[in-house]
């Protein structure tokens, strides 16, 4: 598999580390235990298109949000994951 890093260009899989589902967002500090539990443990296991967090540790060290079809491994979008994991970005 190859991922087109928006900063480094097309690179081979070995340069990246997979984390998982990019959908969960970290609740704000006042969130309930249940909300945090959901954030920590509940993940969709999608057979199809899902967004995932990948780390380009062998390159620019950017965390990327990769849109990938888990059935075909086709990657349709790669973008920096900046801020995507926060329920609400503090000012």
């Amino acid at each position, binding site marked *: 598999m*190859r991922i087109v890093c928006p900063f480094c260009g097309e690179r*081979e899989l070995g340069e990246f580390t997979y984390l998982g589902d990019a959908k969960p967002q*970290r609740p704000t500090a006042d969130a309930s235990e249940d909300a*945090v539990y959901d954030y920590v443990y509940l993940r969709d296991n999608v057979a199809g298109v899902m967004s995932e*967090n990948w780390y380009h540790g062998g390159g620019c*060290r950017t965390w990327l949000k990769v849109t990938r079809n888990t059935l075909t491994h086709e990657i349709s979008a790669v973008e920096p994951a900046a801020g995507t*994991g*926060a329920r609400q970005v503090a000012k």
Partner: protein
Amino acid sequence: MSQSHRLTSGGTIDRSASLNFRFDGKSFSGFKGDTLASALVANGVKLVGRSFKYHRPRGILTAGSEEPNALVELRSGARREPNTKATTAELYDGLEAASQNRWPSLNFDVMSINQLFAPIFVAGFYYKTFMWPAKFWEAIYEPAIRRAAGLGRAANIADPDHYDKAWAHCDVLIAGSGPAGLAAALAAGRSGARVILCEEDFAPGGRLLADGGTIDGLPATEWLSRTLTELAAMPDVRIMTRTTLFGVYDGGTYGAIERVNDHVPSPPEHEVRQRLWRIVAKRCVVAAGALERPIVFAGNDTPGVMMASAMRTYVTRYAAAPARRIALFTNNEDGWRTVETVLGAGLQVAAVIDARAEVSPAHRSLASKGGFPVLHGAVSGVDGGKTGVRKISVSLTGGARAEVEADGLAISGGWNPTVGLTSYHRGRPKWRDDIAAFVPDGAPPGMMAAGAANGAFGLGACLREGFEAGAAAARDAGRSGSVGSMPVADDEAFALTSLWYVADKGKAFVDQQHDVTASDVELAQREGFQSVEHLKRYTTLGMATDQGKTSNVTGLAMMAAVSGRSIPETGTTIYRPPYVPVAIGAFAGHHRDEAFHATRLTPSHHWAAEQGAVFVDTGLWKRAQWYPRAGEKDWLESVTREVRAVRGGVGFCDVSTLGKIDVHGPDAGAFLDRVYINTFSNLAVGKARYGLMLREDGIVYDDGTTSRLAEDHYFLTTTTAKAGLVMQHLEFCRQVLFPELDVQLTSVSDQWAQFSIAGPKTRDLLKEIVDPSEDLSNEGFPFMGARAVKLRGGFTARLFRISFSGEMAFEISVPARHGEAMARNLMIAGKPLGVTPYGTEALGVMRIEKGHIAGPELSGTTTAADLGLGKMMSTKKDFIGRVMAGREALVAPDRQVVVGIKPTDTSRRLRSGAHIIPKGEIPGPDNDQGYVTSVCFSPMLEQWIGLALVERGRERIGEIVHAHDPIRGEDYDVELCNPVFYDPDGGRQRG
């Protein structure tokens, strides 16, 4: 020995280069350009192996990598390679090969008695027979079966050769150099595309080498050499022979194995044996051709029965005659080429048995000219044994029988396109009735099939499809140059009448490599294993090293027939790479032995090695474990001396392996507050603080000391093991969770050499290193102080007053390139003080004496409170893991927590891993209350001590419990105690 079956002229062998070789100890000769198989054919050798289960005599069936029978052990000693196909092994001078699965000899094989028991060796035999008693399976049945059945013997010493791995990139990748592949390369190459063409054989040309033809008005061989010349002149076209494209992976990545030096006795110095290629291609044209398939009939495994196309290859390409009087059994027009080849070489045609109702007038006249009969019907049996075919029984259409005397039988049941590559992404090929074959139905992205691989069997069609595919692929890859004119040839007829199996008495083999017979397929059907996937696993059809290249389609067609379904309904099994066996060594490449993974050396490594240090692998690092001295009888004596020297004087240890991260920016403090359980934003500049990090689920992740070097600059350290992971985690926090914070992270693990200098005489040593203007007193440099200092001579270093050993200690940090010099200077400056370098063992002993936690306690199951650090958790801020750390089970009062242990028998040695059980109880899972995590011999207490995780441990200080160690068979009592064994009030480190 003379080459009795070598034709006097023809072939692409080099008759001026005679090569000697040995097969089963007997000497033969062949020519350069031979394979082992063609050289054996040229020497009249028909019997080359014994079959897997029944030990039946077997000969050469094919001339390529699909060969099921002619498997040999090639080479000897460490290079002995089992199951090597004689049909692809290139002949070299001095080659040594041995047949397999026979004892004592190929000619007289004791185990061929299995044939007499054949009725019981049917599909599922092992499952049905060796059921009882169950315990006999591993001890008796399996070893006996493994001895009796099987293929070659692997070498039992390390492979002395090197294997390489390489990457390549191109616009158009082409599999196969037959007419389709070459036409594709011409079109793509002319258009300006970067082309890689992989050819499994050592000579390009594919079927052109055996079947000839006329292309652009030229004899095929002349067109071939002109084409190769044109391609060679294109700088961006690369033809890789001896290279098999074996798999396709995601994103247009392909696997190929290049047999760089398999054709010589051993690789020349500094050269590799094989090279594994990962090729990234924008487009791929699969021109891998087709494999001729057999027709199954009784005795079809007799030596001398050969695929018709293979027979033509041996005669035309190698000028070797597999037989002198040859019969042909065909169900299609293509098989008749064999007649022309055989006659052209001056050999005799005994008869043609054609399963079709009609034979063309041209072939009729060929028969009358050649003086041989054309029999309409099918071969129903072969008379012959280990010496090969003698007589062929034919059941004629209409019911009569005939016999044909011949010493060779060529069979042609039609052609199976090579659909592996196009099907490796779970693609299923589709059935085409007109050619009675499976053809690709779609392909992985970027791939297309052309020529025979796509079911286009004629020469003209192959050239046309290949050329068009090459042009399209180049266009898709953005190359727009002119492709020139397309090579043209006539299209031949391919009139085929399906015939898979001729039922009659005697064993008829579907899968010759695994000895699967026609009756096995029928049995599988009767017993309910009708799905092709079940058929495969129940009978082992298609499961051997050839992966059923000559048997799969035939097997499933026969299953379709007996189960009353159509072939498309029956379907194929899933195709999986690799297309040919690939040595594990090639996948490993150079990553073996000491190069299995990268090795990281500490800055003082070479100096430590000079000191005679014993090194230990810590992840990728080599760390000095202890520094033995002459006269010390074991590691314990050395380590004990090192600890006493530190606690009584001064010592130093390279701690550069700790992860180091610079945290810069106005929000650096705020960032650290969110990733550590304790607070760092209020840390004064010039001070260090111990920090603990949790995972988001509330479990402890890592610990380390972080110092504030400036208002907006922190220097964070991690454990050695987690250095990379913490960096990744912190980047995730910074980028994904907290993008609003103005902070940057830089890994500086490799930039700084860091030494811990510990012991009551530490200041005396530092005074010799640090510039006198620096105040190192308790007032000028208090405990947990951290700042840059000037060294004698003008260099700047960072000094941290932190202590893992519990002694008066500093850590000094210099740019990594000065690390070795620092170690040497510490030794010189410390000589009058008796300075002692110490290793990771002494470091570990001192941390256990002080009750400091490390890897064994940071086990991925412990909370901050379990480690006795619960009070560090700030209640005034949010941080990673805060909420989940408060979960009921993580704050339960009966959790296992860190506690010290001492054996009641003070002379006893402790060992990690022992279970803690209440005293007086019988050990069992119900009363297992924890386990011993870390132990050492404490030179200060002069006995073994340890740390353990024990239920409610802190409330039970003073209690005697039982340590149960079933692995080592040890049982003893230990006392739970304060984990800080030495200097519990910490006076020494503050002094």
